[in-house]
């Protein structure tokens, strides 16, 4: 029997028992749908995380003042007073893999404008901070190096702060009060969204000159952190070593003693986030594969029932000249068609449910073409695999007994 007539035959046979055929396919539909949805959501989340990290600057390094080590237990961070402005200058000067460094400090403060008030984070830093963090302005400009030198009371607002204090009004040139000090707003940053690591709102911040925050708000000389930009993403690992070496030297830490600072590499964080995403995707794919497997067992079950039911039909076909191969092919193609239709409907189901999730929950979705191809092929492979035994059983029937079967 040629393939195309076998295919038509299979479609007819399945069409004769629509209810049963669709229930049989349901396992595969759910399995394939789950695979697609899982990969779609997983890939979407991974892509989003990558984008967020890229927005953070993947060639960025974070140098923080160290935690206090009590009996081997690290308690709190930003506790040591050893990280200073000179360190930041030295990093730029002496580490060849570093292109820029922005020293910074900060604390939580209450901010007031007119009747509105808002508790937020005040960051004191220098103008290169915006470049290091790759953070463009929505309106206005940065404060200047002169502002830093003079400890001017000027401020740049994060988008969240602007929203709460000013709503739809234009904040540029307005005066806000931070703690007890009045600050003039010179700029507003574009929204950056939540931090991929901590989930913190990165836009809930006010940025002011380092000296102003150090002297007029906090009364502290030391730095809490230095944001460092490496020349390239690849160079960030070397930059990290250079910085660690430099700071140990500058802070006169003897070999064997612990650092009094921490250096975190955003490239590392990006890799970690990507890896986390991969692990998640793999796990969920395994779960979805089990669903597919169960679908396959469902196919085998129904095919076995179908072979038993159609024993006489098989007998007749053999009597009029069907070979074992013909009968086997017929049932294999039925299984294959079940897999093909189940897989296709599953893809539609997976895509629509992913879209529904992305609409409903606002999750990003990205369904790669390979996911659709692989899951459809996998569904057919499963159908073939589980269809093989029933098909073989059909082909091994004795035609005389099959013809007599009641």
């Amino acid at each position: 029997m040629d393939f195309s007539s076998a295919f038509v035959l299979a479609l007819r046979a399945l069409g004769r028992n629509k209810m049963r055929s669709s229930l049989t396919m349901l396992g595969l539909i759910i399995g394939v749908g789950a695979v697609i949805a899982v990969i779609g959501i997983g890939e979407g989340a991974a892509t989003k995380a990558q984008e967020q990290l890229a927005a953070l600057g993947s060639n960025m390094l974070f140098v923080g003042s160290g935690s206090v080590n009590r009996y081997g237990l690290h308690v709190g961070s930003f506790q040591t007073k050893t990280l200073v402005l000179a360190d930041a200058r030295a990093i730029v000067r002496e580490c060849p893999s570093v292109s820029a460094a922005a020293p910074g400090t900060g604390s939580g403060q209450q901010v007031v404008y007119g009747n509105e008030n808002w508790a937020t984070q005040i960051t004191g830093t220098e103008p290169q901070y915006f470049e290091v963090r790759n953070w463009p302005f929505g309106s206005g400009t940065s404060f200047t190096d002169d502002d830093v030198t003079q400890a001017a009371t000027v401020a740049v607002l994060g988008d969240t702060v602007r929203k709460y204090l000013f709503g739809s009004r234009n904040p540029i040139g307005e005066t806000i009060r931070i703690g007890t000090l009045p600050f003039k707003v010179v700029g507003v940053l574009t929204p950056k969204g939540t931090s991929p690591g901590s989930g913190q709102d990165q836009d809930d911040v006010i940025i002011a000159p380092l000296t102003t925050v150090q002297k007029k708000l906090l009364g502290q000389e030391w730095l809490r952190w230095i944001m460092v930009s490496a020349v390239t993403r690849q160079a960030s690992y070397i930059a990290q070593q250079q910085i660690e070496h430099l700071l140990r030297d500058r802070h006169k830490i003897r070999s064997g003693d612990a650092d009094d600072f921490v250096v975190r590499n955003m490239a590392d964080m990006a890799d970690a986030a990507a890896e986390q995403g991969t692990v998640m995707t793999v796990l969920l794919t395994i779960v979805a594969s089990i669903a597919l497997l169960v679908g396959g067992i469902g196919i085998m079950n129904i095919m076995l029932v179908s072979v038993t039911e159609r024993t006489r039909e098989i007998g007749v076909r053999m009597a009029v000249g069907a070979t074992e191969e013909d009968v086997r092919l017929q049932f294999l193609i039925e299984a294959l068609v079940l897999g093909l239709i189940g897989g296709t409907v599953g893809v539609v189901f997976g895509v629509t449910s992913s879209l529904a999730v992305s609409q409903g929950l606002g999750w990003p979705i990205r369904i790669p073409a390979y996911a659709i191809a692989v899951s459809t092929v996998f569904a057919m492979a499963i159908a073939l695999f589980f269809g093989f035994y029933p098909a073989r059983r059909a082909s091994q029937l004795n035609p005389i007994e099959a013809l007599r079967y009641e």
Partner: protein
Amino acid sequence: MATVNPATTTNAVAGGVRLPLVEVHDLRKNYQLGETEVHALRGVSISIHAGDFVAIMGASGSGKSTFMNILGCLDKPTSGKYLLEGTDVSALTKRELARIRNQKIGFVFQGFNLLGRTTALENTELPMLYSKTAKNDRERRAREALAQVGLGERADHFPSQLSGGQQQRVAIARALVNQPRMLLADEPTGNLDSRTSVEVMEIFQKLNAEGLTIILVTHEPDIAQFAKREIVFRDGQIKRDDVVEVPRVASEVLKTIPTVED
């Protein structure tokens, strides 16, 4: 399609002697039924020539069904020879046997054995699915075969929409469609009323007159009287093998049976 089956008119001729279509020699068949061994056939030898119309009779368990299964290449003998057109069938593989069933043998069963929810036309096309016949040829030949049994108008009916006699005629059309050397009918009238039975015999007689060899298993003596030759099986052996002196003529008999309302 020509009304005369060309396959049956060109008999194998060797040295001027006509070879029988079917030649079996000392055919034996044993089954293992639980603990006991059943001797279904105990040495059957027979020749059937092309164009013959043979009725095989016998009580159940006489071995006639086993004999028919072997003739139909659905079963293999335990020992003995079966030559079909001079070819030793017992030496063939399963695949070759399937090809012989497809090309040389047409089956008609007691229970019709049509595929449900499949039209008469498609049922008739079935053997051609396994003989690599092109789609257009399939339909044309199936329609011709249905016309041959008087069902040309019912090609698109499902078996459930046909009477028993009509279903059996579809089965006969299916058996004829690949122009076989012989037609094997296993109690073809067993499920039919007497008038319909005679109608089926009328078709058989017509086909036989056109040259088709027919071997018919029946347990009804008056059905056997439509054949040219009557073989009686008993305990796995041939008990009687007679020529029917004056076969009944189905078309004549039909005139004496009143038409039953369908």
